[in-house]
């Protein structure tokens, strides 16, 4: 996703990340780490009785966090995670889904200090190519060093 300095980033650039399968282990550990033990994520019987989902679903925060872990942030260029706008979980992600991220550069805005803010369309999809989580992501990206 961020693999070059600001100078080489153009609106319309796209990327596809590697993929990872969401496991029961991931849901349990995420609940443990964050303390979010809502039964829709952790209680099989409760989730089975839920008319909307019928099974445990991944925490939205897990899905976006996994997405951030799947894309490449080349350290010399990636200066800061600036924020997310219009983050939406458009459909649930369930155990066994294999997710990947597809990105597209929407905007490149240079700053007086030399760095720039790049806005990406950030989409987490499952292995059936169904979008699960969609957001606009802003990152502070470094300009190529002098010399």
């Amino acid at each position, binding site marked *: 996703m961020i693999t070059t300095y600001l100078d080489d980033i153009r609106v319309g650039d796209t990327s596809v990340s*590697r*993929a*990872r*399968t969401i*496991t*029961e*282990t*991931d849901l*349990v*550990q995420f609940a443990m780490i964050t303390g979010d033990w809502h039964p829709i994520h952790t209680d099989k019987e409760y989730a089975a009785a839920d008319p909307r989902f019928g099974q445990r679903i991944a925490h939205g925060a897990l899905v976006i966090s996994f997405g951030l872990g799947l894309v490449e942030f080349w350290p010399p260029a990636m200066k800061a995670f600036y924020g997310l706008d219009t983050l939406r979980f458009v459909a649930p992600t369930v155990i*066994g889904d*294999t997710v990947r991220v597809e990105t597209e550069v929407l905007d490149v805005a240079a700053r007086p200090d030399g760095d720039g803010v790049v806005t990406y369309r950030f989409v987490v999809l499952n*292995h059936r190519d169904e979008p699960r989580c969609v957001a606009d992501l802003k990152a502070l990206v470094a300009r190529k060093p002098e010399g």
Partner: protein
Amino acid sequence: MVFQQKRDAEGRVVSGLWFEELTEGLVVEHAIRRTVTETDNVMFTTMTMNPAAAHLDADYAKGTEFGQVLVNSMFTVALVVGLSVPELTHGTILAQLGMDDVTFPKPVFVGDTIRVESEVVSARASKSRPTQGIVVFEHRAHNQRDELVCQARRTGLIRRAPSQGAS
């Protein structure tokens, strides 16, 4: 009545074997077996920053010759050593010096149950450390279908039995 347990020179309970007991050709079957779980594989793989699709991507793994996720073999070898500790080296090993000839003849899958046996390949006194010896083990791990899934030679610096006190 106090159950008389094996102790080291400082009085700590040990369950491993002293250098003197580890004679060439000795085979020990380890009592504790372990079913490898999805948790084991996901945690170990992510803990060690290994992004290989074979371990974390079930959709990819479905299309491989194995048809399912492979358990990270570095976990397997760590499990094999761990399962050998209670009867072999608990309280009697000073340090692991190295491993050789580590092979994985068959894959390990989530749900497989691993058992381990160990054989003493060689045992010699340490030239520089009079209270220790150098022992080479061969660990052999089988799954529930009796297939050999991991074999490894491992060298340890092993303590001699304490000269006095309870053996």
